[in-house]
C-alpha cells in the first residue's frame, strides 16, 4: 500500500455527495444530504459503509429514509410543531432530534424528550445561553421521568463511566485523524473549507486517486500550538475529552468547563453508588435465611 493510500485509511469520511463511494480506502461514511431518494439509493448500494446519516431536509420527508442498516440518523427540525405531528413515527425510527430552532427555555427541549425522542444538542450547544445549558443538563441528570438521552451529555457521561473518553472534536466530526469531509471534488478537514476549495486532497475520478494538495492543516496547527498558546488547557482536568475544543474559535470555555465538571461529579457519584451497592449486596443464600 502506498503512503498516500495508507494516509487515507481514515475511519470516517463525511460526505455531502456520492462520488467517493467507489474508493476502496473509504472505510465508513457519515452522509449529509437533504434528498431522501439519494440517501435510500446510496444506502442500498453502500449501506454497510454508511454509519450515520444527517438528513438536512424536511423532517416529514425523513420518515421515508429506509434505515435498513440501522445507522444513526440525525434530523434537523425547524420547529417543535413539526416534531409533535410525527413524534410517534420518529420514536419508532429512533432518529436523533437536532433542533434547528432556537432554544430559549427548558420546555423547548423537555417537550421533545417527554415524547421519548432523543435530543442531540451537539450542533447548537454553543449558542444556548449558559444558565439554560445548566438547566438542561440538570434536567438530563436528575429528572426521573426522562426515558431517553440528551446528547452530548449522555455520551460524555457514559464515556466517563466506561473510562473511554469520547472527544468533543469527534462528536463534532472534526478530527483530521478520523474524519475527512468531501463535497465530491476534494477532501477537507472541515466542511467550511469547501467554500474556498481549501482541500487536503483533490479527487481524480478518472484515475480513481487522491491528489495531495499543498495544504497546512488548521486543526493540526491548532493542536500543535496548544502548549504555547493555551497552556491552561494542558493543565485542565477535562483535556482528555475537550483537547482545546472549548476554546477553538471561541473566547471562553467557561460553559464547557462547567458541563464537564458536573458530568465528572455525576460519574463519580454513580461509581461510588455502584461500589456501595456491590459491597453491600445481599448474598442470595443470606437472603433466604
Amino acid at each position, binding site marked *: 500500500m502506498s503512503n498516500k493510500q495508507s*494516509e487515507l485509511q481514515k475511519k470516517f469520511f463525511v460526505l455531502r455527495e456520492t462520488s467517493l463511494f467507489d474508493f476502496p480506502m473509504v472505510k465508513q461514511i457519515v452522509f449529509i444530504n437533504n434528498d431522501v431518494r439519494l440517501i435510500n439509493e446510496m444506502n442500498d448500494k453502500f449501506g454497510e459503509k454508511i454509519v450515520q446519516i444527517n438528513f438536512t431536509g424536511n423532517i416529514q420527508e425523513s420518515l421515508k429514509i429506509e434505515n435498513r442498516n440501522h445507522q444513526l440518523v440525525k434530523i434537523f427540525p425547524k420547529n417543535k410543531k413539526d416534531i409533535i405531528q410525527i413524534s410517534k413515527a420518529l420514536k419508532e425510527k429512533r432518529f436523533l432530534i437536532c433542533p434547528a430552532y432556537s432554544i430559549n427555555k427548558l420546555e423547548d427541549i423537555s417537550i421533545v424528550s417527554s415524547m421519548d425522542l432523543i435530543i442531540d444538542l451537539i450542533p447548537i450547544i454553543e449558542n444556548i445561553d449558559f444558565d439554560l445549558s445548566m438547566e438542561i443538563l440538570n434536567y438530563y441528570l436528575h429528572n426521573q421521568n426522562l426515558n431517553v438521552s440528551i446528547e452530548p451529555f449522555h455520551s460524555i457521561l457514559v464515556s466517563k463511566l466506561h473510562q473511554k*473518553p469520547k472527544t468533543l*472534536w469527534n462528536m463534532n466530526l472534526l*478530527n*483530521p*485523524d478520523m474524519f475527512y469531509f468531501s463535497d465530491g471534488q476534494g477532501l477537507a478537514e472541515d466542511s467550511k473549507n469547501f467554500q474556498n476549495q481549501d482541500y487536503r486532497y483533490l479527487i481524480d475520478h478518472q484515475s480513481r486517486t487522491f491528489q495531495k494538495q499543498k495544504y497546512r492543516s488548521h486543526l*493540526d496547527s491548532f*493542536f*500543535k500550538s*496548544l*502548549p504555547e498558546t493555551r497552556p491552561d*488547557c*494542558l*493543565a*485542565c*482536568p477535562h*483535556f*482528555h475529552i475537550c*483537547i482545546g475544543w472549548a476554546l477553538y474559535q471561541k473566547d471562553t470555555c467557561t460553559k464547557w468547563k462547567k458541563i464537564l465538571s458536573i458530568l465528572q461529579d455525576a460519574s*463519580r457519584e454513580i*461509581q*461510588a453508588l455502584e*461500589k456501595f451497592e456491590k459491597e453491600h449486596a445481599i448474598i442470595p443464600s443470606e437472603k433466604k435465611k
Partner: protein
Amino acid sequence: MMSIPTLEKMFLRLEEWIATSTQLEDIKIIWHGGEPTLMSMDFFNRAIELEERIRATFHLSIQNLIQSNLLNLNNDRVRMLKTLLTNEKGEIGRIGTSYDPFPDIRIAKKGDYNSIWDRSIQLLENENIPYGILFVVHKLALNNFDYIVDLFANRFSEIGIRFNPLYREGRARLGDKCRDLYITSKEWGDFLIRLYRYWEKLDKKPRWIPLKEFDDFHFSGSGHLSCDFSGKCATTHLGIDTDGTLYSCGRGIDRKYEQYGNIHENSFQDIVLNPARQRILNRTTYLLHTQCQGCKWWHYCHGGCSMDAAIHYDNIYNKTNFCMSRKKFFNTIYKVPRNVE
C-alpha cells in the same frame, strides 16, 4: 535521607487517601534511592508497623518492592527486608538491582562492586528473596552483545531482567566517561531487535523486559505494559522525595521535574488535582492528536516516557526520543499491530 516524621506523614496521607478513594484496590510501595538500604533499621521497622495499621484498618493489600544496589546488606538487614517485602498472603516482593559485568561501570566506595554484589545475591538466595536485574544498555554492551546475552541467559536463566537504554540522567549526565557510553535511538532499536532474535530461540523464554511484555501484549493482548509504554504513568505512579516533595515518579524525582506539592502541606486529594500532574496526565492525549497521530504502534507505545522528552527536548509535549527505535523494533518483529480498539 527521609526522616521518620516524614515517613509517618506519608502513611498518614495514604490513610486519608484510602478513606476517601472509591477506586483504590491495592497499593505497591517501591523503596527507591539513592540507596534505600542505607536507611536505619528503625526507619523500616516503623514503616512495617504503619503498613500493618493500614492493612488492619482498611483490609487492603500492600506489596513492598525495593530497588537496591545491594552494597549494604548483611544478615540482619536481609531478614528485616524479608519482613518488609512479605505481603499479607505470604508472597515476597522482588528486590530490583542493577548489575553490570563490565569493570569500572559501577563502583563501590570500598572494595570491588561485583564481589560485594555477588555476596549479597547469595544472602538473598539463602532467604529465598526473589530478585530481578536491571541492566543498563550502553556502548560497551552493544560492542559485546554476545557476551552479555550469554551471561544473562546462562547465569541468570531464572531471573527477570529488564533492559533499559542508558539515560542521560543522574551520574550519567556528568563526566566524559559517561559520554563515551551513550547510545543513540537507532542503536537501542537495533539492540532490541538483536536481543529479541536471541531470546526467541531460547528453549524457555526468560522474563526479559520489555520483550516479554511486548510479546504478551501483541500475541495475547492480556499483558501489562510498563509505565513508559502504557501511557498511564500519571495515574499509576507517584514519586515521593526524601523531604516529602511529590513528583510524577522516580524519574521525575531524578530530574526534579515539576513538583506536585509536599506531603507536609498537601493531601493526596490535593495532588490529584494539581496542575503539574494534569500536565503530565494530558500529555498522552496531546501526543495522540499531534506527533503520534495516525501512528499504527500507538497502543504499544503511547508516545513513551514524559521524562525522556524532558531530558531530550526540555519539553514533555514531545514523544520519546526513542520513537524511531521503537518503530523499527515493532515493524521488524511484529510488522502489523494487533487490533486494539
